[in-house]
């Protein structure tokens, strides 16, 4: 197992090199000059040229890439053009906010979708199965920005129960923290919620048709015990795979939710950096998320082993 983890961590190096190279090339391919975007419409051509020189943008793309790789080797993600701060500082300021939002949304999604998926599978063909299947289809189909705005209109504007935007900061109190979190988390949870319930249903259906379930039922084991111990536990592996992928995509993909609710997270940082052509921030954020993605997938692989000890990562041992 340890060997497996070390091997995966070593694999991270070429992965990151490829990610760095691709993101570097893509950012340079987008038309638009960071200096003119930063200085705004009123800047003169000489001001723009001067700033380009200061930012090192007059160097050839190859020289810029080598400098960038050199910084990366030294664990330096560079300095933002717009904020004039280290990229890592900018990321670390915002990442906890995205993490809070992601895990809250993830928790809500799991809380609702797993029981829904299990019930739908164990009562296949019933009205509850159809209800959950149809609602999960809606969950995937409803645009996040529309749902977010509707929730704001209802709970903030019309009822006045919850704040419409922003995140409570330290000093605002626990209640403010929770009330600010509810609407964005619920909005963000809809897609993973739908995905989880569909995969749980499918996975449970497959497991519940296995011979050992029939055997357990024949032995007179209670229905609940059969479903949870023999059924759900064995259906967990595909659910874990989807969960890992959902967490990874939520971390980098909460952009719309963060924009609608003015949530100060990674999504907003990246979108703004792209608009401002703040290459360094875009590159740093993508690399940060790539590392995270690889690590989460590694964690999921380790969890497979915990859930199902029969899974082996020892390549020498054959199967």
């Amino acid at each position, binding site marked *: 197992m340890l060997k497996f983890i070390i091997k995966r961590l070593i694999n991270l190096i070429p992965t990151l090199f490829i990610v760095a190279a691709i993101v570097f090339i893509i950012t340079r391919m*987008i*038309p*638009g*000059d*960071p200096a*003119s*975007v*930063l*200085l*705004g*419409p*009123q*800047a*003169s051509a000489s*001001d*723009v040229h*001067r*700033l380009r020189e*200061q930012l090192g943008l007059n160097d050839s793309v190859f020289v810029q890439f080598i400098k960038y790789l050199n910084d990366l080797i030294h664990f330096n993600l560079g300095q933002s053009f*717009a*904020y*004039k*701060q280290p990229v890592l500082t*900018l990321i670390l*300021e*915002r990442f906890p906010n995205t993490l809070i939002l992601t895990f809250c949304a993830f928790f809500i999604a799991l809380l*609702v979708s797993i029981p829904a998926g299990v019930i739908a599978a164990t009562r296949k063909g019933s009205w509850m199965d159809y*209800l959950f299947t149809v*609602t*999960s289809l*809606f*969950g995937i189909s409803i645009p996040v920005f529309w*749902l977010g*705005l*509707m*929730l*704001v*209109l*209802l709970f*903030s*504007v*019309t009822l*006045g129960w919850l*704040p*419409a*935007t*922003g*995140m409570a*900061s330290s000093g605002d109190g626990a209640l403010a923290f929770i009330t600010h979190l509810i609407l964005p988390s619920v909005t963000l949870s809809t897609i993973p919620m739908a995905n989880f319930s569909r995969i749980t249903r499918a996975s449970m259906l497959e497991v519940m048709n296995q011979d050992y379930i029939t055997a357990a039922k024949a032995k007179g084991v209670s229905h609940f015990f059969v479903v949870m111990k023999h059924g759900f536990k064995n259906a967990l592996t595909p659910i874990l795979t989807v969960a890992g992928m959902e967490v990874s995509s939520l971390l980098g993909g909460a952009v719309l939710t963060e*924009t*609608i*609710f*003015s949530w*100060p*997270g990674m999504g*907003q940082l990246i979108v*703004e950096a792209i*608009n*401002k*052509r703040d290459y360094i921030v875009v590159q740093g954020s993508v690399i940060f998320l790539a590392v995270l993605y690889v690590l989460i997938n590694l964690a999921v692989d380790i969890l497979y082993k915990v859930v199902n000890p029969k899974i082996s990562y020892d390549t020498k041992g054959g199967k």
Partner: protein
Amino acid sequence: MLKKFFALIIVACLLALTACGTNTTSSGSGKAVDGGTLKIGLSSNIASLDPIGYTSTYESNVMRSIFDTLVKYNNDNSKIVPSLAKSWTISKDNKSYTFNLRTNVYFQKGKFQKGRKMTASDVKYSLERSLNQSAMHRIRDIKKITVINNHQVKIDLDTPYAAFLPMLTDMGNAIVPKEEVKGWGDKFGMHPVGTGAFTFKKWVADSYVLVDRNSKYWGPKPHLDAVKFAIIGDPNTMSNSLASGDIDVATNLQGPSILTIKKNKNLNFVSDQGLQVSYLSFNFKSGPTKKLKVRQAIKLAMDKEDLLKGSFKYGGAKVADLPLPRASWGYDQKLADQNKTTVDVKKAKKLLKEAGYPNGFNTNVYVVPARVPIATIFQSQMKKIGINVSIKTVEWGTFSDTVSKAKAPMYIMSWSWYPDPDFFLYQMFDSKQIGSLGNGGGYQNKQLDQLLTKATADTTDQAKRKAIYGQALEIINKDIPHVNLFDQDVVYGTSKKVHGFTISPDSSITIASDQTNAWLSK
């Protein structure tokens, strides 16, 4: 089940919204009271609050509460009034400005000084810092800054420049304490210290900036305890936040969010004359638009009223006939009337034929996504005279790059700066600005260049300058480097408990000063 519940409440919400208004608190005006935190929504993020590092209006609007400049514009931007300088004199050759500073001005307390008195040395330090270190060059042509005594400073210019005082009103030329700038280094922009009505307290990245009342402010005591500038990028979220009471002032309202505020009886909707002009600009370096007759034809085929209705259907703009906004002192109604045209497709076609394009031609118009509705209407208007326009929608970075390199055959954009005509006409039409976004079309007219230089070099008298700008406008109207489209208003909404709050035509927000003092009713 939860999904079903949400589906039901969404339907209920939609019905409720169409049926009734909301229930935000309101109260009438009366005697100003002290206290409270005013929450203002800003539509874009803040990167730096350092005078030499800021790049946007959003940043300068926060800075306006923390810093002061030597002089400033009054609320309606009609004239320059004292700020840290209580008076000033201009030498006869218009090259030297002597400022007499207030004697009761203290810096806010910071980490590296305890709130000491501001002196002429600080003015010299701050302006030289702006001159030498600002990427934006918010001040220029200064030969020398001399400290006469603690409360008098003299600035000598290289050449006479009548728009020097407007330049000093820029937040980039705010007066800062040297100790704090040196102490914080590159991080001064995150820990700003000035002489303004409010002291910087907290900045939560991408979220908000909080400022507290400065108890040692030189002007009248601010009514408000604090001001919170909240970053809300989405326009719908901005209006929803105002309606829900999350914020007290919603700025930069656009599209349907204007309607949300207008319809809500518990909110105030304000639409005042602004300093932003929109226009269609032509390429003078290549393509058919080099020919005057083609530009004349396009102008004649354009129905500006239609364009206005299509792109500002919720209000917030007027048709423009001059490249200067109505709020600028250089605006001349007579010249605007002369420049008005009525749609004449027949004549436009004739002009195109004379220019050598009897069957029209294919071309592109560049716009940012927000201006696609204008471009679409423009496209259909051009079809009538045989010009097939393809709309190139690009976001800002690409737009500015393409336009300033004269690669756009036509483009639609807007321009806004100080009310002084120099910041519109020189920037957009002087040949020295070719290569910049202002004169991205590459327009050149020697006679106009001379007049634009004369307007700032010969005199500081506003009436005389206006006459020179009048001559310049006549040339511009004749050459048609732009078809002027709209004069955009400053549009914002407030809750009814907000009093004494205004946004100036240049979109600047001053919460408290000797000119204005906003307050919140209980």
